[in-house]
């Protein structure tokens, strides 16, 4: 009897209870897990899943897994957003509990930046960069797999908090003292810390991996200034990653030590300094937004030149602008808290450095416009997203310059004006960019294109929805509505604009459904959508090989002479395949189970630390160490693909092409 009571007691603390919506989620999570197990067993797919995906070190497979996860996370973050918009649609609304509302705005922010934008970006890095630079894989395929699984299990740890233990609710950057034990005694904050920490280690490793890949693995003849612009953008983004992410690691570790062993880094008592957290987290956080936006700039550059049938205008200035942005991104962090009282001199420095970023960004905008000027434009879906991005990002950037004026910021700070600004640059810049990239490289990933008709529906719904949702928020901000407001009364007069904004939010939600439909439709009618190796008449090396690319990418490494090498080859017809190509055995990495196992152990360690269960955390950490030692002792990590196999694969492709 007593034992039953204690189990009940434990379960009521372990699971989140008392909210019908969350109960529904718990049930549906349970059911879909059962369904997954049943399907995998019924079709005898466990071995396939393990060999072909979970233990794969192939950059193309890892990229696809990143993208699948990020689309799921986009769904969850989007549901959070719509729940918030429902709550705010009417004055004095009580659709959500206030505590639940706090959790939702926290998880919406974290998920959209760290578990949606970042993995979608890494997915595109993985799929595109080795193909663009003529490499067989990334520099460290094993580490790459580890990065993915660290992200995956970090994201799972963060997401599980909403049904087990309780979500974090101190905002997406968790400022102390609110995030300290004194003000957030629940375990939600621990989920925040460990979820982000574990996936952050993966992100850091990806940064290192792609810097080395880009610097050392380029095909003969491809000098740095002949690299495709997306590869340049990935390089600039990774440079920011390796300088910014260690700061995040330290900041989260210190916050955890405050909560776990009673240290006094950011506490109100004991000499701690909460402002230091805010400085540290933004020293990572501001560069972080440039980490996610620079690759989007790279995508726009590649898309715009492909669909204008022209060389990119101002290649050198584009590279220079991106590197300048990488550098400047480290000197603007204080603009997130001008109101904190650092004094006029400090605020002036950071106001000017912030405004300075508008200059290289402006250069890029003009480069894209001049690329289109007198081009033969083709309005495919990737191009539509690119064209829609330009005005959206210009307006978002302009309101950013308004916010950077320190005295004016005292008025705008933490108002809906700010909310509208950063959604405009993050949706209009990052999300539009990654959608453009996803549509552009989808045929390369899967060998079939996405239905253009449905894609255009999705595009227009997203775009109209975006302006309907966020333009009213600028005015709400100027009318004094602050961010994270749970509700407001009738007499504030914010009702109508909020209702309009909510309608816009739902339009974007419908746009997302159209994208899902588009994918499902294109798979169902896959025969009509089969893509050749070069469906867009592309310019860079990834279009010179089959779609999807063979395991080794390039049977023979191409020699590059110009920036748009594949385009030039097509123009000169010089690459006309001569009969006898000389193949050599190709050196490839073997699959490994260690990344998956080690990251799973990290998940258990994190889960143990979240609950303060050292009996779980310590053995799991020992397991992590054993995995590292096991890897160090394994020497049989590579193999060669024999020439015969290459010949067969290539012949099959060429046969199909004729």
């Amino acid at each position, binding site marked *: 009897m007593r034992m039953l009571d204690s189990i009940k007691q434990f379960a009521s603390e372990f699971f989140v209870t008392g909210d019908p919506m969350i109960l529904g989620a718990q049930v549906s999570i349970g059911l879909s897990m059962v369904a997954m197990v049943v399907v995998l067993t019924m079709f005898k797919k466990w071995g396939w899943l393990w060999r072909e995906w979970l233990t794969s070190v192939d950059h193309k497979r890892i990229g696809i897994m990143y993208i699948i996860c990020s689309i799921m996370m986009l769904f969850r973050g989007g549901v959070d957003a719509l729940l918030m918009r429902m709550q705010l649609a009417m004055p004095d609304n009580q659709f959500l509990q206030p505590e639940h509302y706090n959790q939702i705005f926290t998880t919406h922010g974290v998920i959209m930046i760290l578990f949606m934008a970042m993995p979608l970006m890494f997915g595109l890095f993985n799929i595109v960069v080795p193909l663009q630079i003529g490499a067989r894989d990334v*520099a*460290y395929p094993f580490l790459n797999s580890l990065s993915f699984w660290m992200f995956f299990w970090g994201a799972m740890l963060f997401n599980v908090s909403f049904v087990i233990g309780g979500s974090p609710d101190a905002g997406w950057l968790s400022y102390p003292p609110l995030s300290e034990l004194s003000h957030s005694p629940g375990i939600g904050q621990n989920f925040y810390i460990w979820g982000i920490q574990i996936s952050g280690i993966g992100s*850091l490793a990806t*940064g*290192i*991996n792609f*810097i*080395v890949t880009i*610097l*050392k693995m380029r095909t003969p003849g491809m000098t740095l200034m002949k690299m495709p612009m997306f590869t340049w953008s990935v390089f600039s983004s990774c440079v920011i990653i*390796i*300088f910014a*992410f*260690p*700061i995040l*690691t*330290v*900041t989260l*570790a*210190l916050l955890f*030590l*405050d909560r776990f*062993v*009673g*240290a*006094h*880094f950011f*506490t109100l*008592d*004991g*000499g*701690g*300094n909460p402002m*230091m957290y805010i400085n*540290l987290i933004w020293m990572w956080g501001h560069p972080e937004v440039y980490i996610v936006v620079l690759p989007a700039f790279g995508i726009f550059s590649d898309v715009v030149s492909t669909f204008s049938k022209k060389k990119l205008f101002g290649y050198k200035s584009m590279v220079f602008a991106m590197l300048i942005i990488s550098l400047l991104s480290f000197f603007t962090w204080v603009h997130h808290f001008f109101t904190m009282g650092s004094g006029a001199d400090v605020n002036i420095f950071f106001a000017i450095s912030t405004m300075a970023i508008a200059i290289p960004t402006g250069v890029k905008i003009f480069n894209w416009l001049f690329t289109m000027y007198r081009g033969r434009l083709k309005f495919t879906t990737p191009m539509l997203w690119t064209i829609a991005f330009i005005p959206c990002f210009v307006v978002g950037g302009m309101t950013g310059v308004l916010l950077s004026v320190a005295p004016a910021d005292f008025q705008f700070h933490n108002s809906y004006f700010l909310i509208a600004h950063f959604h405009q640059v993050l949706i209009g810049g990052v999300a539009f960019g990654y959608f453009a990239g996803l549509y552009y490289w989808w045929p390369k990933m899967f060998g079939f294109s996405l239905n253009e008709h449905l894609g255009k529906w999705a595009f227009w719904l997203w775009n109209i929805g975006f302006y309907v949702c966020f333009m009213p928020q600028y005015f709400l901000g100027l009318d004094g509505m602050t961010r994270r407001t749970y509700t407001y009364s009738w007499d504030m007069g914010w009702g109508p604009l909020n209702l309009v904004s909510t309608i816009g939010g739902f339009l974007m939600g419908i746009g997302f459904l159209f994208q899902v439909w588009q994918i499902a439709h294109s798979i169902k009618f896959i025969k009509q959508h089969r893509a050749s190796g070069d469906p867009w008449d592309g310019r860079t090396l990834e279009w010179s090989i089959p779609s999807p690319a063979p395991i080794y990418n390039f049977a023979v490494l191409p020699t590059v002479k110009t920036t748009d090498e594949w385009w030039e080859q097509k123009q000169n017809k010089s690459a006309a395949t001569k009969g006898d190509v000389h193949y*050599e*055995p190709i*050196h490839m990495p073997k699959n490994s189970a260690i990344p998956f196992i080690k990251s799973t152990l990290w998940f258990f360690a994190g889960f143990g630390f979240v609950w303060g269960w050292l009996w779980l955390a310590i053995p799991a950490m020992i397991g992590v*160490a054993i995995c590292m*030692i096991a890897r*160090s*002792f394994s*020497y049989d990590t590579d193999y060669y693909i024999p020439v015969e196999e290459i010949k067969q694969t290539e012949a099959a492709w060429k046969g199909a092409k004729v």
Partner: protein
Amino acid sequence: MAHAAAHSEHHAHDHEHDHESLKTFGFWIFLITDCILFGSLFATYIVLHHNTNGGPTAEELFKMPGIIAETFILLTSSFTSGLAVLGMHKGNTKQLIGWLIVTILLGASFITLEVTEFYSMVMHEHATISTSAFLSGFFVLVGTHGLHVSVGLVWMIGLIFQLSRRGITAVTKRKVEVISLYWHFLDVVWIFVFTVVYLMGVM
């Protein structure tokens, strides 16, 4: 036929060499990230080091003779790890392993002294991580360095097993070079710890 085989072997050898230098290069980049990690901890310590919250101050707490001993031991271990690399370049596996063992012993003595220092602070002076912001910063900064050294020790022991089984190959050679980089890096970090934390603390 024989010619072709020799060619492909030669090719494989070249490839292996590239492969190993790629890993060393990546380790340099990793060291940049580790620099930023320690930089953040130093910045935190410097911001907080006056906030003693009525607890012991640096001057009362630090006992320099022990710290100076630790410093000399770690600097010497950096020197011996250099000797190990020299032995490796001469192709002398015994010398390489021997100097690595000396390096491990010195590193282990460093850790022992550090743990003793922490122990006496906690037990005798009641100076714990939760006493004050200064001590939080101190324990985490110095402790992170100590943790790095401890990881290096385990790594070196594992490497000795690999060396005794496989001898000096392209792969083990790269591994020794990487760990000696790591070890020198920790030495440099310690010089900053010694200066910023200890010397400036008692000045």
